[in-house]
């Protein structure tokens, strides 16, 4: 029997959920997939009753002891089993794990709740599948529940969350809902969705309730933090001046006024935003913050989204830096007052990540440090970019390019891109500092990159000093495929069975695995392949991998701009062709991954169009700013009322 684990299609199921549940749940000891399949075939719809009654057919198939254990398990989980059986009966092809999760969460009320409103199943399956189930249960086309559910499906679908937004105008929602419904949405559809808990309203916008909740909670917490001093008190000015002077004395160049002010402000405010563009000296400030904090008995803790960024932050500051994932795993209680939490590359943090961090902030101070000109987060929401322009939050903007970085020309060019301009660039001539552009036709891209690579290698460039950063998945696939085929011509030892990567090839790890110290985005190279184990260097650490880990490794001759965020290489090669996803922030992010040389190649016109296009973060519809405004208004009213009350 074929196991269904796809998004529901509304077609009759081939394998019952109940049989799959019995096969996979270890409480049903002694019954695996073969025995479960045999039971399902022999007993059909009577499976549950037969197990409970210890039917002799059950005993015959699985043996008496497993039959008795199954009866005991079935009796203990009757409510779960009842929901699964009912879902089978109505032909709901829901992935087994989701159905079991649903059954455990909703318990005995589950069946009745879904009978009353089948659209509750939207939380585990698609609109199309749920609508089919609802219609089969007799829900009329014009039923209010259908309209409300369509609104919810729009908000959680591609139109809103799918593009990184956290809200849409009511008008846009109703228009999109009409496509799902096959007719105009009812006049009260938005209200019905809010009433049923499928949406939250703010003025003339609707949000998925989860994101509304998170944005509101972030707004409340950040407002409270921004008006507070550090719990352990403000470092006295005299002390801070002495510490700052000592720190500055150890630096190769004097700090700028803005850098000094940033370090001071981190000691005066519980929440501080440090917005630093490429080459503006953010890392120098972070080191200063860490050193001065430690001198007054505080404990700086740096968190980043990616493992690679954490490694860079640790190297740059000589302090402990961990990923947000590891931080959330380790922090089993709120942080203490002596902790100064520093979220580096904060522009990569989406709403959910920041919400999770804030839930553990406890009495600690928070410094959000990042570059607001870079790409928005991969996950929905925008918080850092908004705070970076908020006048009521303690913030410092570092935008002055430092002398030591001016020789490459990269920071100056990046500043131009930030403002929507890109000057004429010379063509690539070899390994040298600076930014170049070389015209290239799309069908000649891989050959052109290969030629550039040979020139760089001849000048003594190491393989790991250069990275290709491609904006589109199509270009990434073409480049990786081309270089993989070249590599395989040398007949290296390839990954067992799949041969999708081989010894010596650059790779990227795509899964968080805190136990093994691996994070999604860890990059490196395959060192050695044996039949039963593979040695790889990822983020500077040697790891022993098993053949089964192959599904979490991808080639990394070229990586996406998102994956490259938070990392740096000496030189980067960036192919640019016309694409609707290309915008200013993508070009800026790719450009600022290089310490010394950027090699653009492709279509100059496409590059110019991209630089002129406003950044993706500005195109997202998010509610965080409005929630912040409302929180402050509420707080102001409260304070005014308190003052009035005090006068009475």
């Amino acid at each position, binding site marked *: 029997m074929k196991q269904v684990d796809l998004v529901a299609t509304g077609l009759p199921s081939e394998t019952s959920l109940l049989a799959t549940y019995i096969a996979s749940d*270890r409480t049903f000891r002694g019954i695996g997939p073969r025995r479960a399949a045999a039971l399902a075939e022999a007993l059909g719809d009577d499976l549950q009753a037969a197990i409970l009654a210890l039917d002799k057919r059950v005993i015959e*198939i699985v043996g*008496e002891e497993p039959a*008795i*254990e199954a009866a005991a398990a079935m009796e203990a989980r009757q409510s779960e089993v009842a929901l699964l059986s009912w879902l089978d009966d109505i032909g709901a092809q829901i992935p087994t794990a989701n159905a079991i999760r649903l059954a455990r969460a909703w318990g005995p009320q589950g069946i009745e709740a879904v009978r009353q409103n089948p659209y509750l199943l939207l939380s585990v399956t698609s609109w199309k599948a749920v609508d089919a189930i609802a219609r089969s249960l007799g829900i009329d086309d014009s039923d209010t529940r259908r309209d409300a559910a369509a609104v919810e499906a729009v908000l959680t679908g591609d139109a809103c969350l799918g593009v990184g937004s956290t809200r849409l105008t009511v008008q846009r929602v109703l228009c999109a809902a009409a496509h799902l419904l096959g007719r105009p949405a009812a006049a009260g559809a938005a209200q019905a969705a809010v009433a049923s808990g499928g949406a939250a309203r703010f003025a003339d916008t609707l949000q998925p309730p989860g994101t509304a909740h998170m944005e509101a909670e972030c707004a409340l917490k950040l407002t409270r933090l921004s008006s507070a001093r550090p719990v352990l008190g403000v470092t006295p000015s005299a002390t801070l001046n002495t510490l700052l002077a000592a720190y500055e004395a150890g630096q190769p160049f004097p700090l700028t006024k803005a850098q000094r002010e940033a370090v001071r402000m981190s000691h005066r405010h519980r929440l501080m935003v440090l917005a630093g563009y490429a080459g503006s000296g953010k890392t120098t400030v972070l080191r200063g913050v860490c050193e001065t904090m430690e001198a007054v008995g505080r404990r700086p803790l740096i968190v980043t989204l990616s493992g690679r960024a954490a490694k860079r932050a640790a190297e740059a500051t000589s302090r402990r830096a961990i990923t947000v994932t590891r931080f959330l795993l380790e922090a089993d209680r709120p942080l203490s007052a002596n902790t100064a939490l520093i979220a580096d590359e904060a522009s990569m943090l989406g709403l959910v990540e920041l919400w999770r961090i804030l839930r553990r902030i406890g009495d600690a101070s928070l410094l959000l440090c990042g570059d607001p000109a870079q790409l928005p987060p991969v996950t929905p929401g925008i918080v850092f970019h908004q705070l970076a322009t908020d006048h009521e939050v303690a913030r410092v903007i570092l935008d002055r390019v430092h002398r030591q970085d001016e020789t490459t020309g990269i920071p100056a060019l990046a500043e131009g891109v930030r403002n929507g301009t890109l000057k004429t660039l010379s063509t690539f001539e070899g390994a040298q500092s600076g930014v170049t552009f070389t015209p290239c036709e799309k069908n000649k891209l891989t050959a052109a990159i290969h030629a550039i690579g040979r020139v760089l290698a001849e000048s003594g460039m190491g393989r790991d000093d250069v990275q290709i950063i491609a904006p589109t998945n199509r270009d990434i696939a073409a480049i990786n495929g081309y270089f993989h085929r070249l590599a395989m011509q040398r007949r290296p030892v390839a990954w067992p069975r799949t041969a999708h990567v081989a010894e010596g090839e650059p790779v990227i790890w795509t899964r968080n695995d805190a136990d093994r110290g691996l994070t999604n985005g860890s990059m490196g190279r395959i060192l050695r392949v044996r039949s039963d184990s593979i040695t790889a260097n990822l983020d500077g650490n040697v790891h022993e991998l098993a053949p089964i880990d192959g599904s979490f490794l991808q080639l990394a001759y070229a990586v996406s701009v998102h994956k490259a965020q938070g990392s740096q290489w000496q030189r980067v090669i960036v192919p640019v062709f016309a694409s609707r996803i290309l915008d200013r922030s993508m070009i800026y992010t790719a450009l600022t991954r290089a310490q010394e040389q950027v090699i653009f190649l492709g279509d100059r016109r496409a590059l110019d169009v991209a630089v002129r296009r406003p950044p993706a973060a500005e195109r997202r519809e998010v509610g965080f700013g409005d*929630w912040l405004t409302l929180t402050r208004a509420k707080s102001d009213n409260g304070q005014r009322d308190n003052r009035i009350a005090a006068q009475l």
Partner: protein
Amino acid sequence: MTSNIEKGRETARRAENWAAEIEESGRTDEFVRAGALNRSLVAERLDFSRSAWQTNPGLKALAARLDATWGDGKLTPAERVSALIAERRSAGDPLPVLEGALVLREIADLAGLHYTEMARKDVRAVLSSYAEKHGVAMGSAGTVALEEDITPSSPDPTEMVPASRLREAQLRLSKAERRLAELRAENAKLRAQLMRGDEVAELIAMGARVSPKGRS
């Protein structure tokens, strides 16, 4: 036509009435074995199938009550099985065996246990010890083999670990991960409730009352 549910209720009512008669006549000892109600005997007397004690809710409740009031309700399930073994031994009878395996459901009936009680660790330990001592299997084997009991027709020489063992480990891992995720979610939810209070809910309610501005 009487439905099965109504028939079941009728059977339970007959059994209740019969039990009341036996109690009045003081003959409860005749229907107790190993400290619990002798379900086989009563089912035979009242002409219903033994399995009805498990599947009929009224009979199930009656059996539990009579175990406690007629029998010795203080015995644990494992103790009842031990008492049954001792009783059978003194009568020179072994526990029910068929084709070299204990007949567990019959043992359950004789000991006055529900099938689910037979799955308990302590009960299985008693029976397992008995089975080992008497050289019989713990319950009949099934006709369909478990995955790990199947010898692969052509072993894969490159496979260092049998696929079945890997699958089992993966199933255990995924179950553990699921349970961990459930516990984490529950913990997070409870913490959130404590930390948030009503403040966020109040703010969201305020947001819903904000009047729309003119938007293009």
